[in-house]
């Protein structure tokens, strides 16, 4: 199950240096998504580097702690200074880098300009592959029926909608079905899921119904947070639907256990 991504984008004279913003959830909970991202980027002709990093600062930003958010934003901007691009396997963290970093420093001209430059070179993974690198097709295989959930920030802040579907359409053996409410929030919302657990549960319960109704065997998304939420609910309800980050499928690296599955469990 090997994948080779064929870049049909403009031929480059030099390899773009892409800094992988791995995101704290992928770093800690599912490193394999990070390796899938590396593979996709390298196959598309990038030189991938991984600067020392922590978190984009979104939990602080969305909790009203602007000072901490700024500290972490500056830290990230500095860490990725020498990269041509910054790419995150997440629309949510991507949205933070692209849309909210410039807002954080509005009114501080020098920093605002730096944040603006950083925002310009930052991208969500799949839209970067398609829109910037011009990748049309990845040569991966996945035997299954999948539904793709549009994570909110990727969809609304970064316009990630057609890019993952276009690449998934080229994956051999894969059937893509649409959720009835693919653009409806799964109820994750970062700390919201824990602070308003009951409410978050009510929202994700409806999402789980939608996923089961679509008769997919695997649900995909571009954000690990949403995936943890959706599959956590599906598993609690005893559903056998699996969840994977879209990068795992596109990189042909979906042979390990799916999210939250037994690490000794059945392998595909």
């Amino acid at each position: 199950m090997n994948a080779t991504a064929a870049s049909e984008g403009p031929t480059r004279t030099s390899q773009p240096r892409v800094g992988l913003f791995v995101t704290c959830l992928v770093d800690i909970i599912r490193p394999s998504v990070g390796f899938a991202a590396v593979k996709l980027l390298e196959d598309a002709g990038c030189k991938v580097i991984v600067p020392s990093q922590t978190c984009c600062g979104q939990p602080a930003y969305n909790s009203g702690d602007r000072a901490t958010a700024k500290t972490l934003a500056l830290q990230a901007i500095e860490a990725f200074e020498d990269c041509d691009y910054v790419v995150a396997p997440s629309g949510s963290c991507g949205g933070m880098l692209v849309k909210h970093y410039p807002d954080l420093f509005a009114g501080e001209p020098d920093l605002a300009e730096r944040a603006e430059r950083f925002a310009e070179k930052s991208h969500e993974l799949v839209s970067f592959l398609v829109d910037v690198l011009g990748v049309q097709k990845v040569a991966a295989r996945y035997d299954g029926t999948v539904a793709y959930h549009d994570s909110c920030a990727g969809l609304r802040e970064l316009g990630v909608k057609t890019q993952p579907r276009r690449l998934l359409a080229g994956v051999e053996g894969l059937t893509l079905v649409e959720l009835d409410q693919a653009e409806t929030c799964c109820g994750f919302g970062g700390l919201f899921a824990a602070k308003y657990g009951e409410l978050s549960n009510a929202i994700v319960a409806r999402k789980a119904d939608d996923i089961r109704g679509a008769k997919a065997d695997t649900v995909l998304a571009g954000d690990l947070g949403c995936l943890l939420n959706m599959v956590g609910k599906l598993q609690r309800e005893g559903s056998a639907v699996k969840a994977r980050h879209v990068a795992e499928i596109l990189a042909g690296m979906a042979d390990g256990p799916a999210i939250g599955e037994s690490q000794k469990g059945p392998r595909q």
Partner: protein
Amino acid sequence: MNEVATSAHFKENAHEALTDARLQGALGFSRNFVGRRAAAVARLPEFDALRDSARAIKDHTLAHLDLYLEAYERKVRESGGEVHYAQDAEEARQIVIDLCRSMGAMSVTKGKSMISEEIGLNHALEAAGIEAVETDLGEYIIQLRGETPSHIIAPAIHLTAKDVEQEFRKAHRDLPPDRSLAEPEQLLSEARQVLRAKFLAADVGITGANFLIAETGTSIIVTNEGNGDLTQILPQAHIVIASIEKVVPTLEDAAQLLRVLARSATGQDASVYTTLSTGPRRPHDPDGPRAYHVVLLDNGRSAMLGGEFEDMLRCIRCGACMNHCPVYQAVGGHAYGWVYPGPMGAVLTPSLIGVAEGGQLPNASTFCGRCEEVCPVRIPLPNMMRHWREREFERRLSPAPLRYGLGFWAFFASRPALYRLGADLAARAMRLAGRGKGRFSWLPFAGGWTRYRDLAAPEGATFQSQWRARSGAVR
């Protein structure tokens, strides 16, 4: 004093709503608006361009609000009406009551008005011995039930037709008990029948306003039932109650806003009735009120001008943000605990009644952004909710566990080397703890999550630690 709020108990209110099977059944209806709006937007290719001009009209007006209010007031006077300014809810109620008393009014009919809800007008009128009858079907129903609206354009959306039938049988005891009320049309016609007598008996008609036109002194209301027309034409006096940001410069501007309003609200190209009223009856008019008053309410709005919440004053009260909100869809409007629910309420409520009372609302959002996506005047609702969270955090109003938790996490997150080490240790330890199943069904400190959902266990060493091991990096 404004209407009593329970917004500070949002979580408890939400719990009640989520465990109320009847309410959960009724809430399904609000989701119909989503498809209808989408269809209406698809039929009008220039919809997004219209939203831009709608936004520009409101921004321009807000930037010159004092001028347009003066112009509006002048025109109202020229047409024979009077304008009264009310600083707060108390003043507004007093003005209305004084007007009613000066005319010897005993009975008032009312068109749908959220400002009336905001100032708690019905209670005040009743207390002053004046009968107030809501004539919008939804408002009439909730008035019978002693409830507040649960939606800004569909006040009784939390009820099913069955609930309404029961309410009518209880309230209209002089009608034949064996009559059929199975069809919504039968409910509507019974309400019409009961209200007809009230319309004819009313001394004063009170309506809200969707727009006030500075160039002509006109107020505009849109309805689907036509009740507003009877409310303002039949009695001897018409009182319009509206908040100051309802003013727009010209009729043409209002027409532009109307084009996005109905489509955003119900997916209609236009509401069934769009009613314009300018001053009292003129000598040659066949009908109309003999007196025309406008009560303009501030109630905290002018303080929003020029600040970070000014954009909120663009709101044209279409309700699209709540129709599309996953939180509103799950709990309905009453859980928000005051007059304005959903995303617009989450921004407006702390502005109008204070962050100590309303501060929970902007926190209870996933920031999914769908409200902003559909708002016809492009109000950045999530950003403004975040502003409220920032104010709470600055004033140390956020819950202590959140503040300390963030502080602890921030300590590590701002020290990359330490963070990498700690994260790697934690991830490895959690992998061991979650071994076998690959996920947790219970975790300490994560009860809000694991009470309802499993949580995937980490795969093992962190990505950064594996990457370093692999590439021998020392950076």
